């Protein structure tokens, strides 16, 4: 599974990065690298079994905080 994940992300990098380097779009390359790195880190954490924070749980908590009329 980890191997598949690494291969998929290497594939994505090879698909997008050469064109950006050729056009010398360094800002776009930086953003691409940062977002892809973030996506890779989060996916890797998910694959090796780290509990990622669930945004829906946070939203539910916020909604309950604002409106205590809703049943929990």
């Amino acid at each position, binding site marked *: 599974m980890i191997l598949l994940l690494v291969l*998929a992300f290497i594939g994505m990098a090879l698909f997008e990065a050469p064109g950006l380097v050729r056009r010398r779009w360094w*800002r776009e390359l930086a*953003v*691409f690298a940062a977002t892809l790195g973030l996506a890779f880190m989060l996916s890797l954490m*998910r694959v090796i079994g780290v509990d990622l924070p669930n945004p829906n749980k946070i939203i539910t908590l916020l909604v309950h905080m604002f409106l205590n009329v809703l049943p929990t």
Partner: protein
Amino acid sequence: MVTVLEKGRISSLHLTATIAVFIIGTSVLLPPARDAKQSEWLAVSAGMIMGLLYNAMYVMLAVQFPGRIPIEYNDIIFGRYLGKAISALQLWFAFHLGSLVLRNISEFFVSIMPETPIIAFAVLMMLVCASAARNGIETIADCGPLIMLICFLTLFFDISLGMKDIKVSNYLPLLNMSLNKFFRESYGAASFPFAETVIFLMIFPFVKKREELMTSTLKGVFLGGAFLILEIIRNIGVLGQIEDIYTYPTFEAVRLIDVANIVTRLEIAISGVFILTAFMKLSALFYVTVLGSAHLLKMRSYLPLVLPVGSMMILLSLINFDNVVENIEFAARIYPVYSFPFELLIPMISLLVAKFRRLSINKLSSE
């Protein structure tokens, strides 16, 4: 300027069809206002009227700033820093909504093919939508009329073949609930799916004829709503009281169609509609997310963001819910409150500020 990022332009017909299909997408799968039971169709009709008002407001806002997306005019309405924060929130809304749509459709696939892991469907669906988003708004909007035609043909055949199973007594008693509950349910129906078209604020600038914006938008909302209401009326008539027990009532109602043991198992035809409309909704949401993010980060093209944002959307769709019950619970109880600031508060404040301070496109270019 937004034109640097996107050169495509769409016609009014394409906008109408795209909005109609966007509204049908996933709401036909998981119908809104389910707690209203047999009066669900009335609650959704009331929700559609609210949705038309919402959409009139969005168009009025878009007309104030022709050719600009919200990311651009948030800065002038709310100031530089607050504007950026609000733009980021709006992009989060589109991104999160996209992950919910992806989750809904892949969960539906898993209910048909229970042995397959959910990620397989999520990745495949996302690849198609990423390809659509890479090709720009013209490609996405071009699918609109065709998908809408398929939807309405399927609706016609489904309803005419299922007509003999409809029991009129299933519709009674009508409106046996408090007015309070009725309004809550119709507000829920307005927030999902009718007011989700708030993300079209980022697509309105690409429409060719600006004077037709209002009519084509409202026509689209009306067509999508009519489709949804007809499906719901059929579902209640066929399934009756047990309608809100099923996870996917439309699917179950079509499954019951049986004409002389020959015309059966038509549910796969309606699954086609589910997939096509979810594809449209997901690609529109995804496109808006990457285009807006690219604009916020001052990039020269949104294409480099497509793959990273797509993989993050898949990841978020996987961790969103543990099971489908949580999904329905979130859609019914939390979502109407959560979507309120994005669908009503921010556009309304933007419109009021722009009207009263007479902000417009001239102010934007002089900045």
